[in-house]
């Protein structure tokens, strides 16, 4: 069975940009606003017959930060944002392949 990449090292929520070093060796960088806009929860991304307008990073204050970071099981991270929003569970594949801002994450996925 194929296993997903997992973080071997993570930056702190006090850092200017969030970083994850993955078990496959890749180093991902994230801006806090993009992470927030990428929230996968039903309220932000919608579900069934609820289709909200997509969030854009610019909608959030430039100094937006997570105030808390938790691991969820063996597969995801949960951020609690300054405004209290905390319903997003970010699975590792989403962070590694979709939200990574290094530019070649998509490429990394296609060659897997």
């Amino acid at each position, binding site marked *: *069975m194929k296993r997903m990449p997992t973080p071997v090292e993570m930056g702190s929520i006090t850092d200017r940009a969030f970083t994850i070093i993955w078990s496959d060796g890749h180093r991902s960088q994230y801006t806090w606003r993009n992470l927030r806009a990428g929230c996968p929860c039903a309220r932000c991304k919608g579900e069934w017959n609820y289709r909200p307008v997509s969030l854009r990073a610019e909608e959030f204050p430039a100094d937006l930060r997570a105030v808390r970071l938790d691991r969820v*099981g*063996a*597969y995801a991270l949960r951020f609690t944002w300054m405004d209290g929003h905390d319903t997003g569970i970010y699975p590792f594949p989403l962070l590694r392949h979709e939200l990574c801002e290094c530019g070649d994450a998509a490429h990394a996925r296609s060659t897997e």
Partner: protein
Amino acid sequence: MAGTRDGVTREQVLAALADVIDPELHKSIVELDMVKDVAVTDGVVRVDALLTIGACPLRETIVDSIRAKIGGIRGVTGVTVNLGVMSAEQRQTLVGRLRGDGTPQRPSSFLGPESATRVIAVASGKGGVGKSTVTVNLAAALARAGSQVGVLDADVYGFSIPRMLGVHGRPTMIDQMLIPLEVAGIRVISIGFLLPSEEEAVIWRGPLLHKTLTTFINEVHWGPDLDYLLIDLPPGTGDVSITIAQTLPQSHMLLVTTPQLAASQVARRAARMAEKVNMEVVGIIENMAYFLPAVGAEPVYVFGRGGGAVLARELEVPLLGEIPLDQSVREGGDEGRPVVISHPDSAAAAAFRKAAERLRDVVPMQARHA
């Protein structure tokens, strides 16, 4: 309280008491601070001990055990045991000690990544394939092979573990900590123990289910020496499975299926879930694999053949066992004595033992740091 002319010393008595294990908490009563005072007068030993609760169901066991250990010391001519009950404060200290195994902050012994307990969630996808039967028999086989085993009945709506293991009663509660019941060397917790009666139905929404399970994980004293915790999941990939995946990151999944496609295809979905929550599927057990009409007869493949093997190949995980359809398996379950215990010579029991052995190979017991 020093040594007497018979040479029996307080130290000797305390050393002997260190071997008296609390039958519920699985720790020495000395270590648990349950021994209040020891006095030796002319070879007669008096022990003052404190029980956790007044109505401790196992008080006789403790008294007998104390008498036996001290009676074994040379020069002891009599033993008196006085039992008291811990104060709320003393109990609190004890709970702190149990929780963290020394450090009060650590919630449960197997939640941390450093825990030596291997957690195995038994899942199926489809219902009725024999998850609970497989769980109790694997547990019994592992226990017989010398492992410390716990069974967490996570099938809250359709719990059947109490019946299958023949264990009934109410777990002792020590300040918010549940002490699992024990049968055949297996520690067991089930919602069935907490309901007014086992006939009661559980009609709950998801959040209550989640709360119950996290209680079973966090607030049950499984014991620091537990080697394997088997979790009997309900069928499907719902609330319970998600809670387990989120609360026990180190747990493995064992898939149970029957040979027919209707079962193995649904089992594949459980595997798909395992993949999504990054849980390792450690193997497949094919239950009701075949029927032996008579000893030495050709097997009859009632539900088709090889569904488990196909699934195992597809998922690239080992097929840990093919359990024959056998009346003794059903009888064992209904009578509360798993076939591994009730009919150890049957083909089904042998198949379960073999599967447990393979499971121990794929998920070996971990060395403990003392």
